[in-house]
């Protein structure tokens, strides 16, 4: 995998030499090292980052590192951040869902049994913020640096520890945060590109999902036990 300067490092570096971070053009994504022509084309057609509406620089670095660990660049797709998954998560957190749309928010608050579902007073945006901070604090205490600066092997250790509940975070459940961030990553990866993730429909191409054109009354006969190989179509393609 190509080593690249993380967004936060880049911005910090720029800030140190006296340039206001806000006016610095976003760095172009360094292409990963794809093995196939298709992946190369996909990566090269992602020219610029789009900026974040909710995540702080530190949080953005975490989310980019998280989605890149879950969805690494390889022969199948570019990396999670190049697929727009950090952008997706950022927009979800700053939008209605992140602010608690459709979430019953009245107290009193109690942690119940797992089967009673989500019981924190936090909106998704507040929960992600708290979770990122807690993982970064764990990471600093354990490895001396924040999550996005860990080696790949150490990142894996942290993710596995969260997933298997062997890592305990301060004040919140690491497993609960991991599962929420995992779900958000999958939503961005496999959802329609209109939300900012799944750039170039790369995840749909990866699995052979044709997207929004779904007139299959004859296909279900014609393509029985046969690949239905068509370029996928997204909402934006038809609007």
């Amino acid at each position: 995998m190509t080593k690249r300067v993380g967004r936060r490092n880049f911005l910090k570096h720029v800030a140190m030499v006296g340039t206001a971070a806000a006016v610095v053009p976003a760095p172009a994504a360094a292409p990963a090292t794809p093995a196939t022509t298709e992946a190369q084309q996909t990566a090269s057609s992602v020219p610029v980052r789009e900026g974040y509406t909710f995540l702080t620089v530190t949080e953005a670095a975490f989310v980019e590192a998280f989605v890149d660990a879950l969805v690494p660049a390889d022969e199948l797709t570019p990396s999670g951040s190049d697929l727009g998954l950090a952008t997706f998560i950022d927009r979800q957190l700053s939008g209605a869902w992140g602010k608690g749309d459709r979430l019953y928010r009245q107290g009193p608050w109690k942690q119940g049994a797992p089967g009673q579902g989500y019981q924190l007073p936090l909106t998704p945006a507040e929960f992600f913020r708290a979770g990122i901070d807690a993982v970064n604090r764990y990471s600093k205490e354990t490895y001396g640096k924040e999550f996005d600066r860990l080696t790949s092997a150490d990142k894996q250790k942290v993710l596995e520890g969260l997933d298997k509940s062997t890592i305990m975070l301060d004040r919140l459940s690491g497993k609960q945060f991991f599962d929420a961030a995992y779900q958000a990553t999958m939503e961005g990866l496999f959802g329609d590109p209109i939300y900012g993730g799944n750039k170039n429909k790369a995840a749909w191409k990866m699995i052979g999902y044709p997207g929004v054109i779904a007139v299959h009354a004859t296909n279900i006969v014609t393509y029985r036990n046969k690949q239905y190989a068509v370029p996928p179509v997204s909402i934006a393609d038809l609007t």
Partner: protein
Amino acid sequence: MATKLKEVDVVLVGFGLTGGIIAKELSGRGLKIVALERGVKRETNPDFAVPQIRDELRYAVRNDLMMDTARDTLTFRHRAADTALPMRRLGAFLPGEGVGGAGVHWNGATWRWLPNRDQRARSFYEQHFGKAFIPPDMPLQDWGITYDELAPYYEKFEYAFAVSGKAGNLKGQVQPGGNPFEPPRQRELPLPPLQDSLATELFGQAARNLGYHPFIVAAANASQAYTNPDGAKFGACQYCGHCERFGCEANAKGSPHIAVIPFALRDPNVELRTQSWVTKVNLDSAGKHARSVTYTDVATGEEYEQPAGMVILCAFALGNTHLMLLSGIGKPYDPKTGKGVVGKNYAYQVNGNVTLFFEDKVFNPFMGAGALASRIDDFHANEAFDNGRAGFIGGATIGGASSGGRPIGYRPVPPGTPRWGSDWKRATAKWYQRSMAISTSSSNMPNRYCYCDLDPTYRNAFGQPLMRLTYNFTENDFRTRDFMVQKAYEIGKSMNPTHITPPDLRHDDFSLLPYQTTHNTGGTIMGAERASSVVNTYLQSWDVANVFVVGASVFPHNSAYNPTGPVGALAYRTADIIKEKYLKRPGPLA
């Protein structure tokens, strides 16, 4: 103060599948009918138009067409000793909201529930397996009406809602291609069965080889263009894979907004008021007669009182029960004494599945119809199935389906695959196209401690107590599911898959996550005896004769089948009873 409106003849609370049917059936007779719907009006165009309707995140993950739990939800606990906490988001089940209700976004599986195992549940199990076979904490009871009384209304529902399928039993004669164990029909279904898929074909072959009796499930997904007896026009199903949780852009789904609602609204005496949230049915001082309903216009916050000659509750099962409790109609159920009835016999369903992976097959999981499935009924409707030997009450259907493999929700990988990283991606890319599931859908018998009442702590946006649900799976449920999922595994193994997931035999508590099924039943159950039911066999309140309750809340237990068939049939029957009996002589019918 609520603004008092002019009296009407009938108020319908909720304008979904049952409200739509009843409004249509009562229309054209000069009755002033007002339908109060808490949600907004929706039409195929533009609300279900391509491409936006194919947005899995919006509709299937964020539940855009469903009820808003920020405004009203329920609280939940596993047992009476626990503290109930609010269901802060939808998860295990997805009640609808808006004109058409859950009838807009259901999958369409349409069954006729069983004459004996369902409609005469207690009598059947006592007769065949002895009184002692029914556990003392299982308040199983008969419906109080026979299948023959309901059969014509099933037919009416099937013809109105464009049900596709093959009869398995015509006038007592078993028919090839259908479910041989189903109760008799007088006519074929209005449309031929859906086109099968590789998954349903493979399941059917395997089941047949093992001596079972597979069939393509009857579905309110129109297999061809169709015009119903009232003139509603349905398009042919396109197998788009976006059925449950979505509206149908092809008008191919048996949805009330196509099948009945436009015909009800042709009558100028039928008035629909949307965004009208009913908070209470108001009774006279003796508590024997409903005078009016109070509702809030959720667009303005204004409160209204709508007087009416009769009130028909047509909300989702949970909503009907909640409104009965809030209105003080009928005695609330108390599990300690077993007395009282409102909230009693809440039931759900208990599902299992095994996933099969085939190196050499391509399933195209994104091609599917809502209710496209091949299933067997050998362990449920089959009266020769020996519950005594199996050791549980109830049964299950088992089958393979092609309902729609949308990729946020559906990405099977073989056991042992990592959850992320390149190996996970490779497995996802490989197996997405090469897997199918065999699922089991079990009945859920009532339990003395599974019930609904009002929560003492949490309130909705209208300042009213949330409904509190106390529910968990029971030993009977686990025995049923263990038995069925092992049968599913045996069928799966016989198909020689490359990999198969082992049957899940854990006996975990019920959980509000993940999604399981929106087949919530009970709470206002029907019966022939006042002491043990909320409504009589005409779905009329025993206590307040001008209140009727229609929907899955009237089922005394939950079948292995999807509930919409009998929900629709009972709505048609109730409309007939109101027309033929009640309106001629208002008052208690039983």
